[in-house]
């Protein structure tokens, strides 16, 4: 079946006409969106897609957003970004159908049980064990930095199934039911005062073998495939000049004429230029991605965007002057730091930007080794069994 952008937009208009986004609750709207096949256009028919080119996704999303609907990713951030593509690729069809619709509507949120206290940048060194027991796996370990775990029903989980082979080769990828016995979620308070992330303790948690995605020992390859999904989804996003962190700075600048000095003006203009060059790089990447050409732009976008957001909020706090040293509250209400909030909170929150989702140091390694093809660093743990790798 071949469909073009105009037909996609027409289907989208039908949905927003029958389910006016401003009147209909999000799960109902996104359910209709899913049933028509507009959630992931490149997915199979019946699983939220139309077997269509993913480059048409923007045409659909634009109609939804212009009608007042949500940016789809925000309905289930981890679910859309990391999970859905893995499920459709590796899960049997009936399980995929079971998982994907409530994922798409936001009725069942997903999170990612990857990082551990002993495995951050070196994710492949993780220690959570999964041991086979008949048709089930028994999982023990501790995960950390799990956003949304306290709200989620499901998680994708990376666990070690063979400690006697080198680290990348002994991992397996699972779907874990967070309502299963033995799962304990503890909010992790961060330096902003709030708890957006969690620690997740897994004590003899039983996972059916049917919830394994990909072969035993192939977990690393499965998790890498979601990274390329992230890269591809770059093209779905709509980026406008002067939005995001730099938009915050522009709004503050406009509201504080008495803080305008030539020095601050120059600093803001230089930040604006960096933001704009970055935005244009993303736009250029989208054009390349539409033709199936993937350059280094996604890694660059993360590296530059995160460092830039820190510099932008440093500027904002300085522009506030003494008021910048005030803070609304450190009370931990278990809320998160997303959504509209104060400049001071964004300033503190931005420290995480260069750590989460790949530190700036790791990203520079990625650009150096995968893009520029520079020789790899000496790796002492590469060819020895995971069991024998020194750990802190």
């Amino acid at each position, binding site marked *: 079946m071949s469909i073009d952008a105009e037909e996609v937009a027409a289907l989208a208009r039908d949905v927003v006409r029958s389910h006016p986004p401003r009147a209909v609750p999000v799960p109902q709207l996104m359910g209709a969106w899913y049933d028509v096949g507009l959630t992931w256009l490149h997915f199979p028919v019946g699983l939220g897609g139309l077997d269509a080119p993913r480059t048409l996704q923007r045409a659909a999303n634009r109609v939804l957003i212009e009608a007042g609907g949500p940016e789809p990713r925000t309905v289930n951030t981890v679910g859309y970004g990391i999970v859905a593509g893995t499920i459709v690729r590796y899960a049997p069809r009936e399980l995929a159908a079971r998982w994907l619709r409530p994922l798409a509507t936001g009725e069942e949120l997903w999170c990612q049980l990857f990082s551990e206290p002993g495995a951050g940048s070196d994710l492949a060194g993780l220690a959570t064990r999964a041991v086979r027991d008949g048709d089930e796996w028994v999982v023990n370990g501790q995960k950390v930095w799990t956003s949304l775990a306290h709200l989620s029903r499901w998680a994708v989980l990376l666990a070690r199934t063979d400690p006697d082979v080198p680290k990348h080769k002994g991992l397996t990828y699972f779907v874990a039911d967070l309502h299963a016995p033995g799962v304990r979620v503890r909010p992790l308070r961060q330096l902003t005062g709030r708890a957006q992330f969690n620690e997740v303790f897994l004590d003899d948690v039983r996972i059916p073998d049917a919830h394994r995605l990909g072969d035993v020992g192939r977990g690393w390859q499965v998790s890498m495939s979601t990274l390329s999904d992230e890269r591809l989804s770059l093209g779905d996003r709509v980026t406008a000049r*002067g939005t995001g962190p730099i938009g915050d700075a*522009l709004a503050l*600048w406009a509201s504080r004429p008495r803080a305008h000095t030539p020095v601050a*003006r*120059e600093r*803001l*203009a*230089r930040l*604006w*230029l*960096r933001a*704009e*060059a*970055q935005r*244009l*790089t993303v*736009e*250029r990447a989208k*054009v*390349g991605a539409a033709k199936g050409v993937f*350059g*280094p*732009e996604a890694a*660059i976008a993360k*590296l*530059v965007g995160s460092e830039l957001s820190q510099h932008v909020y440093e500027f904002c706090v300085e522009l506030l002057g003494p008021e910048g040293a005030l803070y609304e509250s450190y009370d931990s209400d278990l809320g998160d730091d997303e959504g509209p909030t104060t400049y001071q909170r964004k300033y503190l929150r931005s420290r995480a930007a260069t750590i989460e989702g790949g530190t700036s*140091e790791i*990203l*520079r*390694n990625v*650009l*150096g*080794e995968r*893009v*520029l*093809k*520079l*020789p*790899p*660093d*000496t790796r002492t743990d590469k060819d020895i069994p995971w069991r024998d790798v020194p750990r802190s």
Partner: protein
Amino acid sequence: MAEFEFTEDLDDLRAMVRKFCAEFSPEPVVRATMETEAGYDAELWRRLGTELGVLGLAVDEEFGGAGAGLVAQAVAVEEMGAALVCGPVVGTLALAIPLLSAAGDDATRRAYLPDLVDGGRTATVAAPLTGGTFDAAAVTVAAKAEGDGWKAEGDGWVVSGRVEFVPDGAAADLLLVAARTDHGVALFAVDAAADGVRREPLATLDLTRRQAVVEFSGAPARLIAGEKRALAALAHAARVGAVLLAAEQVGGGRAMLDRTVEHVTGRYQFGRPLGSFQAVKHRCADMLVAVEQARSAAYHGAWALQDGTDDPQLAASIAKAVASEAYTRVAAAAIQLHGGIGFTWEHPAHLYFKRATADSLTLGTVAQHVDLVAGIALDRD
């Protein structure tokens, strides 16, 4: 053609210019040419114009060009910049050709453009463009109408005054001069060989980029654009020039990045390649980021001026500010990462570093373009 849509035609053009430069303007040729008095090889320039046809890519076919648009011209300039081709890129390609395309009537364009596009003649612009825009208040040349018309070649006008920092000014055959009349600033064409034109070549930091002081004393001049049209055309030329220089900066930055990656991959210290050390690798990653951002900014500028899709001054200043900073930082990092060899005359890193410096000081510094951006993006009401 949508923004950032690099078509097969553009890819072919890039490959063609790259091949030509590798063959006919390799480093030894650049070094030999930069030591000559003129600073460029007239024959090589002519071949770029006639054989390759890459000097008038944005010029209408009617006036000898290819009518392919500014993006195509930027691609060609990027490749020439990567090879450090010696020639009047700033004076003729980046300034005079865009200025004539925007300023003259059809007869004027027909009279001047084909020769410049063919590379048989060169031209430059003697006008205050050093601030990143055309600064009419800083015009230092006065034009007078000679009632008796005793200088027939000059259309009845003469110009007098001194212009500093004229790019490629010593070798140009044709000088396009902004001069003050009783009614404002108008644009004139002056034959560089005419009586009343004195040119003094300046010693430049970048030997591949020449400048001159040009002094007019009653030199015969031909009026090309009156007061209204001249201002708009000069402003336009400053923007096109900034965007084309930005493309050149992208090319030079990319060349330095490639060269540096090659060096740190092949050179061993402490028993391992330099590039395996994170301190080195991360600096290379930063060079890559700078080049990629500059590429986005430069080509956005080219597409915006070609298709009218953005505020032209904003697009030009974004391009020039981002690309200037990128090229100078990348060229400096290249010297550092090459170590001692990078500081020698023998290694080409200094040629790029000097070009980067010259480019960043031509047609507006980073600070001046940042100021222009601030004026547009921040100073609204």
